[in-house]
């Protein structure tokens, strides 16, 4: 419990910002997900205690949103847009290429290093195909760019600086 101090502090800070404490639930969940990499029962109870809102209410919100996960996520979460505008420009090929490239021996790093998923529209349809890595946006994708991005990650660059 003692380790959730950052979350506790964050919540008490927000109490002076928001008049209605229910509005603190979403920011608190997001904070926890980003800070601790997950939203598990311990986190739910912590938020519940600090806001004095029953845990079941926090839980039913938390489980509704994709962002909040019970288990820790991969270090690099790659999310390729599969919606219509990207699909028209061949985003399936980007997805398949990434899958193939990261499944080659020696390319994917350790366990839970990469995850690759198809997701809905990222609001970058005019610069399709698009994908996110840990919420950093990559646009106008092609295979060469994918190679450069993967190499950049492996050489330890910050994700948002990979393509300069």
């Amino acid at each position, binding site marked *: 419990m003692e380790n959730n101090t950052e979350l506790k502090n964050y919540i008490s800070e927000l109490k002076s910002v928001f008049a209605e404490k*229910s509005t603190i639930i979403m920011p608190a969940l997001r904070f926890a997900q980003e800070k601790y990499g997950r939203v598990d029962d311990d986190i739910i109870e912590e938020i519940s205690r600090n806001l004095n809102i029953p845990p079941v209410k926090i839980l039913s919100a938390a489980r509704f949103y*994709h962002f909040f996960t019970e288990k820790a996520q991969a270090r690099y979460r790659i999310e390729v847009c599969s919606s219509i505008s990207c699909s028209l420009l*061949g985003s399936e*090929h980007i997805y398949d290429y990434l899958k193939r490239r990261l499944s080659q021996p020696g390319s994917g790093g350790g366990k839970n290093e990469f995850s690759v998923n198809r997701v*809905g529209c990222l*609001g970058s349809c005019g610069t399709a*195909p698009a994908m996110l890595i840990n919420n950093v946006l990559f646009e106008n994708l*092609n295979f060469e760019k994918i190679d450069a991005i993967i190499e950049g990650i492996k050489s330890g660059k910050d994700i948002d600086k990979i393509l300069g």
Partner: protein
Amino acid sequence: MVRILTKYWDEKDSHSIDVALKSGGYQSAKKALALRPQEIIEEVKKAKLRGRGGAGFPAGQKWSFVPDDNKPHYLVINADEGEPGTFKDRYIMERSPHMLIEGIIIASYAIRAETAFVYIRGEFQKAYERLKSAIEEAEQRGFLGRGILGSKHNLRIHLIRGAGAYICGEETALIESVEGKAGRPRLRPPFPAVSGLYKSPTVVNNVETIALVPAIFELGAEKFLSLGSPTDGGTKLYCVSGHVKKPGLFELPMGTNLRDIIFDYAGGIVSGRNLKAVLPGGSSTPVIKADECNVNMDFDCVKKIGSMLGSGAIIVMDDRTCMVRALESLLEFYADESCGQCTPCREGCPWIYKITRRIEKGEAEPKDIDLLLEVSENILGNTICPLGDAAAMPAISIVTKFREEFEEHIKRKGCYFDNLPLAPVLEGRSMV
């Protein structure tokens, strides 16, 4: 041509308060705060500003539904932009966040709200950071806070970040989410204007709608109206994506002809191909065929030809596009995003997705086409929110207008279109 939202996007650091102030930023707020709230609403009505979030509801009229009571009122800005094909609100927040803030000042004053929330899509990192620092800049200069610009108006703007649920773009789901709950749309009535956030009168407006408000007070309502079409004032940020040479954002008079947008502004169809079909207002709007594209892109004109202006997201498909595959992609999205509280949507959306997938893979029987139509028709109008319709409408229109492609898939036991190549050579990019 008059540009409002994109007026200073070409300038360096267009998101900073300095650029905004140099271009007359916050002058409209000053003018508006000297009026009475009712006078502001009348101006916005006269300007015929219609909601840019999809439904085209007149903004001034929406504001006038807020009762004259003693409860706190709220303004909520819908920045959850998630409808496939749409990418305008993100750019407004990234490139002219002060225009949005100025609009929020005017709108909140008109509806007598002292607290505004911007619900911003969880994935939008840059837009969030830009808007956050713009709010700080505005607070420092006294454009937000207590007694704004020497008036009696107080205002605080809060940013709330979404968490990966498309349905939270629906206004009542969004309100639930701000209240810390799962984003499940509410039954109406009561409408948010009477009982919304924390059961108080609440106005929900789209980012683009509100960012246009300062221009009404800068130019005057008549001039604003004259920029667009007679029933629909102002400019529109059209989002053009798909098989055009120059995809991107184009700020044009509301009601610009669709053919001009595709062939002049967006550079026409990618080399060597012809136009086949267009989704004129985002992925939930009924498809129109190439020969139906001579239409003025305002809410009423697009409606007249059986589709919708929606969010102004023009998705262009060339003649190598497989319409079954396109529908499969559209339906996959809605099947994943249903919040699950109405049976026709929860069961129907995945069902029509699976039928379409079967047809595309060549595993369907002839009767599946009618089944697809029947299930879609049973979703239509039978749900709490329009997400079910958003899946059913393109399904019905694509199957009806391109039925022979569905039949051919069944006859040939699979897709007979070439596998789409990766990103056909794009010959340029527009201003985005």
